[in-house]
């Protein structure tokens, strides 16, 4: 059994291109950053940001994630079409941990803890002091407008049909 409380949050999520979508009717109250070297490498980043959901609360609503078995006990899920890291799955456990950035409303999963701190970047705590650059629109309005107009990212809500009708072939 999970040692974490279950949150009555219901939310969908998925990859950048929208080929894989999932829905969970409950989440565990364990949003966290994991700095271990395996999580870093799996997500190509300074840490993985993860939140659990009971496996019996999860439905794959579009497509099927690809899996890489990163060790004997763990699968890492991702979209085979666009690469978005989607989950950490302890195959013997009763919950799956989704990447918070793949959820439609990441703002609702404020992290509670740092895990795997042996792998944490030595300058990690200085990041909030680095130059806060600019909003995406600032540097080049033309650039930002072009990205917005041509973005092929799935929106942050479920869709009946995707890609949207009329979109150029992918």
């Amino acid at each position, binding site marked *: 059994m999970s040692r974490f409380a279950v949150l009555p949050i219901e939310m969908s999520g998925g990859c*950048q291109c929208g080929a894989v979508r999932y829905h969970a009717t409950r989440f565990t109250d364990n949003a966290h950053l994991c700095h271990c070297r395996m999580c870093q490498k799996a997500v190509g980043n300074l840490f993985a940001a993860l939140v659990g959901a009971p496996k019996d609360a999860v439905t794959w609503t579009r497509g099927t994630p690809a899996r890489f078995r990163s060790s004997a006990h763990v699968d890492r899920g991702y979209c085979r079409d666009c690469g978005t890291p989607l989950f950490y799955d302890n195959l013997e456990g009763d919950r799956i941990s989704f990447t918070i950035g793949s959820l439609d409303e990441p703002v609702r999963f404020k992290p*509670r803890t740092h895990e795997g701190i042996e792998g944490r970047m030595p*300058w990690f705590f200085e990041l909030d002091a680095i130059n806060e650059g600019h909003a995406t629109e600032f540097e080049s309005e033309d650039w930002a407008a072009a990205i917005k107009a041509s*973005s092929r990212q799935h929106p942050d809500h479920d869709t009946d049909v995707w890609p949207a009708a009329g979109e150029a072939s992918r």
Partner: protein
Amino acid sequence: MSLDNKPIYTGGCQCGAVRFRVEGALTNVSVCHCRMCQKAFGNFYASLATAPGGGLVWTRGEPKRFRSSNHVLRGFCAECGTPLTFEAPDGVALAIGAFDHPEEVAPVIQWGIEAKLPYVDGIPSLPGEPTEADMTSAPYLSDLVSYQHPDYDTEVWPPKREETR
């Protein structure tokens, strides 16, 4: 360092099917909070460093790419999913976590702050635990055998003696 004193960086994906080498200084070492980077990386932000023009070589395999907008390709390993690149008309940026020594690639600027998640600035104050502290709830960690590529180049990968994956 190379013979002409250029810094050398290596890295790759988790499973080792894709490996890269960079010769020359990295620029625009940054994190990007925009929603497209969040989603592409499944994270609070992307962390990226731009390779010098002509200084990037794929030494094993090559990323698969997703065109996330008309100007940008996102590269990743088709075998394990590790996000690897952000490729724009002005250069190719590599995912910092994919470097063999990411600690040498410290970000100096933040982009896309319009989408910065409100709790990100509070992250330093969260409590923390090493991986080993999780043994009671995740006892499998005690005999974990990693299939991750090591943080250096290898002549042969995966190792021949390894059982089938």
